[in-house]
Structures are given as structure tokens and as C-alpha cells.
């Protein structure tokens, strides 16, 4: 169904979306690039000028940068591993015949709808607080010393909170994928003498590979820019123990008012995200076309 007429109409109708997105991408990108080579501090906005790669030097040699890079990777990988592994197990469990499946689904999916600031605050205060948190009560009840999660293990705590937010997402998608598995295939494997474990390994898991790819892709997009959870719980601290790249750039530009260095950090973040993106797109391209 394509005549000259409809193709012309199509071009007109797709234009607004593409133009807007292109503008949304290019204009700020160019500006970030521009500022990253400029001296520009919001506190002394009059002293400007070209500084070459100085901003990049400052940003990359800042010890906080390496910390932030490592923290970002640990955060993303940690959450990915936890959510995918637990997600698969939980999806398999929820796929079993049981009473009240619908209600369990609703319980499991709920954390995904909680806004990041709320979940961060609830975990921080009502659970992880060393004095009044529920975990502290639990520790005291069994005679242990309460543990101050957010100052002793800030990154691990944040990984825990974020995993709680994203586990429902992984579970829901993997469960949907499992349910699309042809039950005759399972029965055929059973007839062929496959044990439940090898059925899981040779049939369920390969069937899930596409869904797992999708989960990884989408979660990575969101996890690379985790922000609110850190802002609300630890402010990146203590020190830089829980600062990720997103938070570092934010701190540099809007807390230290150094637009130049912040922009350099932004460019670095974009480059790193692109490396991850290329890697992911390859994986997706392979898995999605099939």
C-alpha cells in the first residue's frame, strides 16, 4: 500500500517526531561539547574563555572520577545480576500452578510503580536507619549490633534498593516470556526423558534468552543514570563511596557551579554510554531480528 500520495503524506506525518528528537539530541549535545572546552563557572560568570582540554584533564584526573566509574559499573552489573537471576527463578516459580496467582503477581509487580524518591526514603529511614529502622529492631531482637547500612556499605545498600525496584520489571517480562513457551515443547522434552532441571536448562533458558536480552538492555538504559536514589539516601557519600557518574556530573556542575568541568564530565558520560550502547545494540540486533 504505497502510492506516491501515501508516501508523501507519510513523510509529512513523521517529520515532527524526527525533527523534535533530532533537535532534542543535537542542540544540547553541541552545547555540552562547546562548554566542555570553555571556562564557565556560575559563580564567576564573567571570566570566560577557551581552555582547551583543561576541563577534561581536571575531570579525568579527579580521583572521584575513577571511583565514580567503578561505582557505576558495580551498580549496573550488581543490579543486573541480582534482578536477572532472581527474576528468572521468580518467573519460573510464578509460572507454576498455584492458588491466587493473580494476587501474587500484583504483590510482586508493585515496587516498580513506586517513585524512586519514595522508595529511597522508605528504605533509608524505615528500614536501614540504625536507630529506628526495622532492620535495627530485627538485629536487636536476635541480640546483634544494629548495622548502619548507608554509612558502612552505601553502595551495596543502594544496589539493594535499586534491585528491589527493578526485580518486578525483570520478573514480569520473564514471566510473560515463559508463558509464551509452547507447552507441547515441554511435553515433548518430557517424553524424551529430560529431567525437570535439564528441561529448564535446555528449553526454558534458551527460550528466555531474547527476553533476558531485552531486560538487560532496558535496565541498563535506566541504571546508567540512577540519580534520585543516591541524592536522597547518601548524597554520593560517605566521600565518594556511592557516587556514580551521573551524580558526579551533577555535583560538579550544579553543586560546585563549574559548568565547564561538568560539561566535560557529561561528554565523558555520553562516550561511555555509547560504548555500552553499541555493545548492547549488537546483542539486541542479533537477538531481536530472529
Amino acid at each position: 500500500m504505497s502510492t506516491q500520495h501515501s508516501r508523501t503524506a507519510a513523510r509529512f506525518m513523521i517529520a515532527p517526531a524526527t525533527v523534535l528528537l533530532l533537535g532534542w539530541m543535537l542542540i544540547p549535545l553541541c552545547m555540552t561539547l562547546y562548554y566542555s572546552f570553555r571556562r564557565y563557572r556560575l559563580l564567576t560568570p564573567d571570566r570566560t574563555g577557551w581552555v582547551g582540554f583543561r576541563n577534561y584533564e581536571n575531570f579525568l584526573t579527579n580521583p572521584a572520577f575513577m571511583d565514580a566509574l567503578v561505582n557505576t559499573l558495580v551498580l549496573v552489573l550488581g543490579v543486573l545480576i541480582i534482578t536477572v537471576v532472581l527474576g528468572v527463578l521468580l518467573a519460573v516459580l510464578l509460572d507454576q500452578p498455584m492458588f491466587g496467582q493473580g494476587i501474587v503477581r500484583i504483590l510482586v509487580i508493585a515496587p516498580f510503580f513506586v517513585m524512586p524518591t519514595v522508595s529511597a526514603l522508605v528504605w533509608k529511614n524505615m528500614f536501614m536507619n540504625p536507630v529506628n529502622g526495622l532492620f535495627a529492631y530485627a538485629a536487636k531482637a536476635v541480640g546483634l549490633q544494629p548495622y548502619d547500612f548507608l554509612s558502612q556499605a552505601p553502595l551495596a545498600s543502594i544496589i539493594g534498593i535499586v534491585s528491589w525496584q527493578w526485580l518486578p520489571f525483570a520478573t514480569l517480562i520473564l514471566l510473560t516470556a515463559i508463558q509464551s513457551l509452547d507447552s507441547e515443547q515441554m511435553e515433548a522434552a518430557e517424553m524424551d526423558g529430560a529431567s525437570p532441571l535439564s528441561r529448564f536448562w535446555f528449553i526454558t533458558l534458551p527460550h528466555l534468552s531474547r527476553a533476558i536480552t531485552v531486560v538487560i538492555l532496558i535496565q541498563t538504559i535506566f541504571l546508567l543514570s540512577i540519580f534520585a536514589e543516591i541524592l536522597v539516601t547518601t548524597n554520593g557519600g560517605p566521600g565518594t563511596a556511592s557516587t556514580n557518574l551521573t551524580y558526579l556530573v551533577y555535583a560538579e556542575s550544579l553543586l560546585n557551579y563549574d559548568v565547564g568541568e561538568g560539561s566535560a564530565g557529561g561528554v565523558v558520560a555520553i562516550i561511555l554510554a555509547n560504548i555500552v550502547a553499541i555493545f548492547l545494540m549488537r546483542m539486541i540486533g542479533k537477538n531481536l531480528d530472529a
Partner: protein
Amino acid sequence: MARAVTQKRKLIATLAAWTIGMAIFFPIFWTILTSFKTEAEAISDPPSLFWFDWTLENYGVVNERSNYPLHFMNSVIISVGSTVLGLIIAVPAAWSMAFVPGKRTKDVLMWMLSTKMLPPVGVLIPIYLISRNLGVLDSRVALVVVLTLINLPIIVWMLYTYFKEIPGEILEAARMDGATLKSEILYVLTPMAVPGIASTVLLNIILAWNEAFWTLNLTAAKAAPLTAFIASYSSPEGLFYAKLSAASTMAIAPILIMGWFSQKQLVRGLTFGAVK
């Protein structure tokens, strides 16, 4: 499976699933519960489960002291506004890609997805400065525009996958029946795509409602939606657990309910149609 499942196996699965489900849901449950306690009971040792004096006092206090209605309205306006605006831009685009696909359609779709990969911090400064210079910092307009743009790829993708399922022959039939492009989209495509459009709207409202990078960075007080309002509790005020819980409950309740209704379509939207 067509086979009878042993009752025992079903019971074990039920027990395990319910235990895990309740554990996952517990923090939300606890928040809602605490919102009905007095501040003293909220931090009582040992924690009280159901046997306390239920009170609605916290909801009243939060509403009075903190201008909660304003933030709630901000959230509504920002999420609904950005969704409607996004839909107006995305419906024609998705129509084009679904029904008049060209050689580059797939590339355009992939490119749109790739704009989601652009880390927001990379463009934080320009957007912040542009908003400041235009005088729209801390305004609903700025957030509506920004959230429209960041969610546009998802809206286009979702609509695209839903439109793809409508057989092209039906639109051709409309064309043969004398329908113009406008009547084709208005009388045939849109009514047929209502379920898809509805779930796109739902998902997008959820995403916009919970968005917490731009809402935190581009607002101060006036235009702050609930995400930013709640973040203000990270200061010592957060130690008033009961009030924090009441504010949190009010912030998440509408979306929690919407989300439960749309969970089936959610999978598809969140995976850009890759998992159905």
C-alpha cells in the same frame, strides 16, 4: 499443561510464591501501615503491627503544612500534559512507519531508541541553562516539554507495535470506500487501536509520574511534582516516619492502582514490543 497437577506440588508453589510476594510487597505495606500510626507508635520498640490506634491525622498534617495539593496537581499536569503532547506527535509518526514503511523505517526506529541511550547528565547543563535563560526554570511548561521529549521514543515504539497488528488491508478497504487520509485515521485506525493507545497512555503517565532526574533538577518549589516534594523529606523531617509515610502513600497510590490495571500491557510497552 494438560496434565493433572498433584495437589501437594500446587500447595508448595502457592506457599513459596505467597511468601516471596509478601516479602517483596512488605516495604509498601509497611509504609501504608505506618501512615496510620502516630509518630510515637511509628518508632515504637518493638514495632506494632495492627494493634495501635489508627489515625488519619498524618494525612491532614501533610496536606496542611506542605502544600501537598499543589505538588499533586503539578504531577498530574506534567504527566498527563507530556503524555497528550507526545501522543499528538507520535500517532502520525507511528502511522507512517507502520503502514508506509520505507527502506529507512527500521533505522529511524532504532535511532529513536538510541536517543534513550543518551545519558541525561550529558545534556543536563544545556537544558538547565536554556531553561534558566528562557525563564522557565521551575515551571510546569519546561517539564512537560522535557518529559514529552524523553518519552517520545517509547510512545512512538509502542504505538508502532500496536498499529503493526492492524492489517493494512483494512486501511486499504477504507481508502477504496472513499475515505480520505483524515477519515481513515479518525474513523478506522484510531477506534481499532484504542486498547493499544490506552495502554500507551497508561505506561507513559506512570513513567512521567515517577521520573526523578529532570523533575529534581529543573524544579525548586513552584513546579515541583511529587517526586521532588518527597525528596524534601530526606532532610531531618524524614525522621517523622508517620508523616513521611502518609506523604509517600499519597504520592504512590494513584500510580500503583493504575499500574495494577495495566500490568499486562506494561510488558509490551516497556520492551518496545519485543516481548508480548
